[in-house]
């Protein structure tokens, strides 16, 4: 590589520079276009989209929290020994939801008969007192 090669390269690049210079876009027009594409209105629209997205997120979280609380209302609280929220259910009154299915037409026959009062009841009571 010598000076003549450098000069030749420079001549080629000079030709390219002249060509580019003639086709350079106008500085002011380019700057105005850049500003309009990044204008406050555009930025405002962009931030509005973000605000709307944030509002939707807050709403979704709120609904989820509410649903969770509603489901947790009847849950047993170990510390107080009671059920959170809803009515207190006594274990002796509890009835299985499928209890009615066990009640068949023959269940009366199978049930133990009631003890009838007898004339011997009085005699046996007097014997016990003596």
């Amino acid at each position: 590589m010598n000076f003549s090669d450098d000069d030749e390269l420079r001549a080629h690049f000079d030709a390219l520079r002249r060509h580019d210079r003639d086709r350079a876009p106008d500085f002011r027009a380019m700057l105005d276009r850049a500003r309009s594409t990044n204008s406050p209105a555009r930025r405002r629209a962009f931030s509005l989209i973000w605000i709307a997205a944030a509002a939707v997120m807050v709403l979704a979280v709120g609904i989820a929290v509410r649903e969770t609380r509603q489901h947790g209302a009847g849950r047993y609280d170990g510390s107080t020994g009671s059920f959170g929220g809803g009515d207190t259910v006594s274990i002796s009154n509890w009835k299985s939801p499928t209890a009615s299915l066990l009640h068949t037409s023959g269940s009366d026959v199978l049930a133990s008969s009631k003890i009838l009062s007898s004339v011997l009841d009085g005699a046996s009571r007097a014997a016990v007192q003596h």
Partner: protein
Amino acid sequence: MERSELERELEALHVDCWGWALACCARDSELAEDALQTAYLRVLSGRAKFDGRSSVRTWIFGVIRMTAIEEGRRHRSWIARTAGADSTMDVADPSPAADATTESSEQRSMLISALAAVSPRQREVLQLVFYHGMTIEEAARVMSVSVGSARTHYERGKKTLARMLAELRVR
């Protein structure tokens, strides 16, 4: 540096910046315009800050280079998404212009074809030195490489370019 001062600097360097943006965007004028526009906005909005460690021109050229790389990447991924085509940053083929018969346009066409044969780094350093008249030290700062590395790219690139131009002249 004040915004108005920056704007004046940009206006003074605009033609030079345009040439550099074209080189960074594989001579795609549409992409170069987008990259230059974005780079100017970065400079004027303060997103790119001048620290005074180099000349304003070197700094702005660095901003343009980085912006062009990002724009090019976005452009390529957009092309890949829309067309599924494999796009590369090869130097654009110079189409014969109306003034194709003139010596100047012939020189230009030959140079663009020859530049396609050198690596992107070599192309950058040659453009900065021969087109923009920078020193190798300044070119290294724009390219964010060491001076030694820039010098190696310069020497190798110059040899390849001279060989390619000689070959094109013979044809």
